[in-house]
């Protein structure tokens, strides 16, 4: 004996000729679409979790000599690439014995920031975002996240980049 479900083929369920049944089909399809969208949101959260766990276990960044201590004057800057080629960073000598280095990529829309001697901060020319030259925090403008900071270490008269903070991965 055949059940009713076996008698009715799928195409007849999906393309019903009865108006009331059609309403059910359209609502079920919308519910299915929304549930799949919910699945996509969940997958996005899982992706963030995996990235977060994976980056946390990744090996530390390499130490790279980026400048010599007296190479740039007070208020001067030097551009370098760290931790890989193509990742532009900016080194600023803020005082006689004080240096700070940050990623040059603005956290708003990735324009290159520059050091302003007048305001003594890092400025993004695209949308007037200002970052502190001391810790990379946002002072004003549209960016909401601080600039990734390069951790520096002094070995003799050499400045060595040994890692990064505020990268979104730590």
């Amino acid at each position: 004996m055949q059940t009713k479900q076996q008698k009715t083929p799928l195409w007849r369920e999906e393309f019903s000729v009865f108006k009331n049944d059609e309403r059910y089909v359209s609502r079920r399809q919308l519910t299915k679409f929304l549930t799949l969208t919910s699945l996509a949101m969940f997958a996005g959260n899982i992706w963030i979790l995996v990235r977060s766990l994976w980056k946390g276990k990744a090996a530390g960044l390499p130490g790279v000599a980026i400048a010599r201590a007296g190479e740039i004057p007070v208020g001067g800057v030097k551009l370098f690439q760290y931790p890989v080629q193509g990742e532009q960073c900016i080194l600023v000598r803020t005082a006689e014995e004080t240096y700070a280095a940050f990623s040059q990529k603005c956290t708003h829309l990735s324009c290159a920031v520059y050091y302003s001697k007048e305001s003594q901060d890092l400025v993004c020319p695209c949308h007037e975002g200002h970052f502190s030259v001391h810790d990379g925090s946002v002072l004003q403008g549209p960016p909401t996240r601080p600039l990734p900071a390069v951790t520096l270490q002094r070995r003799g008269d050499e400045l060595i980049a040994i890692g990064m903070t505020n990268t979104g991965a730590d």
Partner: protein
Amino acid sequence: MRAERFSQQGRGLTVIDGALALIVMLLMVQIWLLSATLDAYLAGHGEAALPGAIVSGLLFAVCAGLYLFVRRIERAAKD
């Protein structure tokens, strides 16, 4: 008999509409949750990723449950 069937179908549609409205609200919460978790992650707060994923998973489970409920109601109303 026919009137009773139409009345039953109408009630089924109302229940499904309610479930749909609930799914839409849950989805809005889930979208907000994803954007907040991503923002926190990019700001260097990776610790927000685990609770975000757990809550998102629960919301998806509720949505999936509601979808199965809608299917069951549809079948019951058609029979």
